[in-house]
Each structure stands twice: as C-alpha cells, then as structure tokens.
C-alpha cells in the first residue's frame, strides 16, 4: 500500500524536509523497484483481466523506462504517476478532464492522464514533463515558457507545456488563432494566456528548426 501524506495546513520550516521531499521519500519506499527497459523483456505482461478484489500486475513504459507494479484496477494513470512513481509533474486539477493540468503524451499524442486507466495505458509509451528535457538541457518549450514568463503560480504549467508540445507536433500551432483554439483544453487561473501563446510561437520555430536538421 502507498501511504498517503495527509494534507497539512502548516508550513514546513525551511530547515526540515519540505513537503515534496517528504512525499518523494515516502514514494520511494513504497514504489516497486524501477527496472530499465530490456531487463525483463522476456516476461511480457498479459493479465488483461482483473478480479474484483485483487490488484492487477501491469507494465508501463514511462519516459523510456519500463515500470512493473501491482495496482488497484481503478487507479488512473495520473494517480499512478504521482502517488506510485513520484512523478509529480502532472498535476491533479479537476480530476474530471476539464482543466488539462494532468496532460501527458501517449505515443506522442496529448491525452488527459486523469481520465486514463493505468491498466489501459499498457503497451503505450507515456511521456511526462519529467521526460522531455534532454541530458539536462531543457526542451525548447520549457525554455520558451521561462523566457516568456508564461506562468505565475505554475500549477498548470507542466500540463500547458505537454499540451503545447503536442500542439506544435500536430501542426496546430501555425498562427495565434490556432494556438488559442488548440490550447483551449488547458486552463490557467492566473491568465498567463498571452505569454503562453508567445512561448508556443518561439518554441515552434526552435522545434521546426531542430526537426529539419
């Protein structure tokens, strides 16, 4: 069982562990060991059918690493990422597919991880915000969001960036109108929208240049 961190209204002192590292520490003791892809390729998981009360064994490829773990069949991909693997970049905003904060890429296409069952995400490649930087170098979209100050509180930002990467790769970022339309599934309560559009335009150019080289 994963231990849940009770929601705390108190502010952790600077000297002590902050909430994130406390969470990560808890997760690392609870999560099934991560195995590099290939190490267990000979035992491909099947188990397509669960029973009503038992967890189901699944294998997921996330950011090019294979993870094997046993989950309650009700687990969303979002909860699995955040609570089982410590990948807390994808955010839980509404948990009902209305805000876009949980956006990840599934086989390169942007989807909502809150409305995806983890068990149904098997056999697909999942990419999260943690997987887009390359050897410590930020993805052009991450860099553009920083340079254009395309956020305030930052809560929606990982979802915005994943959605924006998908948007550019789909060819739906050719002009401002398209960017606004095709990014409409990502809400930003701080209303950083004009700067987000600017960031997407900058990254689009960099990504296009990179893809033609």
């Amino acid at each position, binding site marked *: 069982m994963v231990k849940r961190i009770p929601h705390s209204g108190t502010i952790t002192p600077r000297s002590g562990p902050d909430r994130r590292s406390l969470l990560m520490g808890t997760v690392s003791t609870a999560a099934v060991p991560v195995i590099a892809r290939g190490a267990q390729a000979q035992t491909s998981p099947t188990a397509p059918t669960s029973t009503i009360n038992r967890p189901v064994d699944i294998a997921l490829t996330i950011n090019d690493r294979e993870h094997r773990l046993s989950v309650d069949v009700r687990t969303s991909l979002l909860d699995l990422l955040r609570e089982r693997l410590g990948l807390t970049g994808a955010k839980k905003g509404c948990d009902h597919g209305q805000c876009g904060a949980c956006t990840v890429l599934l086989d390169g296409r942007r989807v909502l991880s809150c409305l*995806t069952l983890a068990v149904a995400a098997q056999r697909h490649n999942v990419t999260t915000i943690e997987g887009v930087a390359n050897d410590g170098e930020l993805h052009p979209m991450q860099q553009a969001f920083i340079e254009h100050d395309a956020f305030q509180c930052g809560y929606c930002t990982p979802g915005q960036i994943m959605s924006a990467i998908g948007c550019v790769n789909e060819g739906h970022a050719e002009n401002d109108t398209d960017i606004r339309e095709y990014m409409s*599934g990502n809400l930003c309560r701080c209303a950083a929208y004009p700067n987000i559009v600017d960031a997407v335009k900058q990254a689009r150019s960099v990504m296009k240049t990179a893809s033609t080289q």
Partner: protein
Amino acid sequence: MQRFVYQRARQPIEAVQMTAADSRGRSNAQYLAGGTTLLDLMKLDVMQPDVVVDINPLAESGYGRIELNQHGLRLGALVRMAEAADHSGIKSEYPVIAQSLAQAASQQLRNMASLGGNVLQRTRCTYFRDVSYGECNKREAGSGCAAMTGFNRMHAVLGGSDHCIATYPGDFAQALIALEAAVEIVSRSGNRTIPFANLHRKPADTPDQETNLRPGEIIASFMIPAAPWTRRSLYLKVRDRQSYEFALASAAVALEQQNGIVRAARIGLGGLATVPWRAVEAETLLRGKPVNDDNAAAAAKAAFASAQGHGHNEFKIELGKRTLVRALQQAAALNI
C-alpha cells in the same frame, strides 16, 4: 469509484461475450473506449459498472478505420475524434462532420474519445451528474426531475417530456443525423444496421433508456451516404465561451443548391434537444426556394414550432432560431 472487473477484448466476438448477461438476465458491464465519459461518471458514482470491457484493441479489427469513396464515408467506431476532424478528405467532402468534431471538447479529449463513445456520451445535466440530488429520472427511474423547477438554463427546449429535459450534449451526432447516417451494430446474435436517427430515444416516460442499443451491443461503424449536399455543409456552434464548451445552440446544415435555389436541405440542431435532432419541417419548407432572410426565418420558425421553455432556458428558442438562420445563410453563401 466502485470496484469493477477489468477485461480486455481483442476481437468483437470476445467483447460481446464478456458483457453477456448472467443467468438472471442482468448485465451491468460497460465498454471502455476513450473513457472520457465513462471514467468521469464512474468517479462521480453516476455510473457503477461491475465489469469494464476495454475494446480499444478492436481498432485493429477495422473499428479504427476511415474509408472514403464514391459511395460515401465509413467511420469506424474507434476512430478518435481528432483523427476524423483532421482528415483532409472529410474536411473537403463532409465539412459538417469535420467541423462538428473540431468544435467539440479540447484536443486532449479529441485525441482520446472515440466516435462510438462520442455519440453515446451522457447528458451534462447537473442534476444527473450530482448524485446528491435524489431526483433524476435518468439516473434512477421514477425518482423525479430536479431540473424541471431547478436551474435549467442549459436544458432542452425540444423533445422533452414531463419526466426529463436533459440536453443531449454532442455535436458530431447532429452532423450524422442531418446527413442520414446509418449505424452498424454488432452483438452475439450477429450484425444489424439501423438509421442513426433511430439510435437515441426521446425521454418520454423512460428517460433512463437513452438508446435502442440492446445489452452488450457494440457500435462498429457509422456510414454516411454520399449525397449532393455534403460538400455545401457546415456546423455553427454558439456557446458561452468561444472554445472548449458545450453548445447552447448549434446547427448542422447541408444544402444542395442550384442557381441560388435549394433543391434539398438537411438540418440537425444541437444543444437544444433531448436527443440528436433533425428539423425535417424546416428542410421541407426550404425546398425549391432561395435562402433569403424571409425563407430562412420561416424555416427556423417551423423548426421550433414545438419548442417549450422551462424558465431559465426560454432564451434558447430565439437563440436556436437565429443560429439556424445564420447557418443556412452561411451555407448558402459557401463558394463551392
């Protein structure tokens, strides 16, 4: 969310067997395609299936295919909304279909949601979605309707009954009903094909029975026949915000026009009715006439002759008429 058994079907025959009713004729199984409606409503405890059958592998059995030829358009039920919306042939030959899909939901949802699931999406009625309201004839037969005297700004003005005025929320379905699509359905006892117009049921006195699908049946595909009006077609959607919102009123319009005279019109109306809605009376009125202000207004008046408001949603009758008038005028003016 209630516990359930997850099963994954690789073939259609496997899927329909997995949802077989038990010896007492009960089956509370649901098919999982994109999951954008199902998981949302399971989290809200509005839907509580005991078996969830993942049918996504059926995409390999033709359910994920788009076929476009001189006879028409065939859309597999597991084609994703975004695929069909971005398909160049659909955009040019059946623009109303591409537009109805592109104006629905967000790109993330369109990447996930299947066409079969899209037409079966459940109403956005807040009383249906919130189980803390005891009254909802759609959720629980005979429990009453909280929307009738409640906040019903988004509710239907066409096709309602004393028992339910929940709006059918979809856009794509309006294009399908306008273009006289057919639905291919698969079950354990074989295949059958029905007109799309017969898929959904008006609420009448059984709002909990939303479609004419029998337990365990799966939609395999939609067939849209080629017709002279498909190219001169469009989808006009009016909503509270410009993107990522359900329709307050929408019109799917297709016209066959010669020398400025309508030879045939096909009209679907969205956001206004309890089911996908075809405005046959308006279509008939337009035949043999030009789409001018008077004729468009007369058609719109005919389309809403039976409309009934319930307080907050009264405005939708006038809004619906104006939406249809504008859609007709835009379609008539298309340069094809």
